[in-house]
């Protein structure tokens, strides 16, 4: 689980990219990205989230994104990314469906 706070733009985005790379390097590629504490995202931030999904999927992992704020969710939706990502309103729901999909996979 990666908990992100602040602004996911050209300044905050690279920190998240580093954090994702560190997770993947350590063998964790079923990632949950909690954006509850994020109060702004633009295309740079979206690019980092897309990159995280790609890295996870390359290793047969996946990425769930927690986006409770409607105004943040709107930025994903405007780019049709709500059809690409698993967007969840709460961490519980994201991790709950992670468990459910583990059951399904087995």
């Amino acid at each position, binding site marked *: 689980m990666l908990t992100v706070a602040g602004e996911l733009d*050209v300044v905050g985005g690279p920190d998240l990219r580093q954090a994702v790379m560190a997770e993947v390097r350590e063998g964790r590629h079923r990632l949950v990205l909690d954006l509850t504490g994020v109060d702004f995202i633009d295309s*740079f931030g*979206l690019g980092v989230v897309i990159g995280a999904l790609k890295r996870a999927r390359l290793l047969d992992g996946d990425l769930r994104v927690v986006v409770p704020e409607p*105004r943040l969710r709107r930025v994903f939706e405007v780019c049709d*990314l709500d*059809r*690409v990502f698993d967007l969840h309103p709460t961490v519980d729901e994201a991790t709950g469906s992670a468990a459910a999909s583990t059951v399904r996979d087995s």
Partner: protein
Amino acid sequence: MNADAPSGDEMIVADFRPGEIVLEIPARTEYVSLVRVVVAAAAEIEPDMASERIEDLRVAVSEATTNAIEAHDLHGVSDRIRIQCNLADDEIAVVVHDQGMGFEPDEVPELPEPDSPERLLHEGGLGVHLMQMLADESEISATDHGTDVRLVVYSSKRRRRDSDG
């Protein structure tokens, strides 16, 4: 406020239209959040501007400003970036002006469908799409000297009027 009304600060505002705010920033990414804060605060002066629309403007302006800074960086331009914000009765218009060679909006590739695997490879290219989708008007004009991005968001009053007529 009447533009012709005498005022003590006439010397300072003489070049500006009423309701115009001008911000100049160094071409460094650390200043993008400052631009967002100023533009959002300016938009809040307009009483009939819905908070969702101010959010839309914040994202669109962030895209334009980030692009402008990248253009200066790419072309080694040390000049500052100018952001003009015009508050009118029924809209807010923001122009982001950079001096880093022209940007060709036609060269931005169309986004693949979200279901296609190529879509996942598109980490960039979403910025122009977001500006177009979030602003009521967006216009990118490139000259030899740089690029102007004009973003307009309408007030709720104007949107109601437009949808009625």
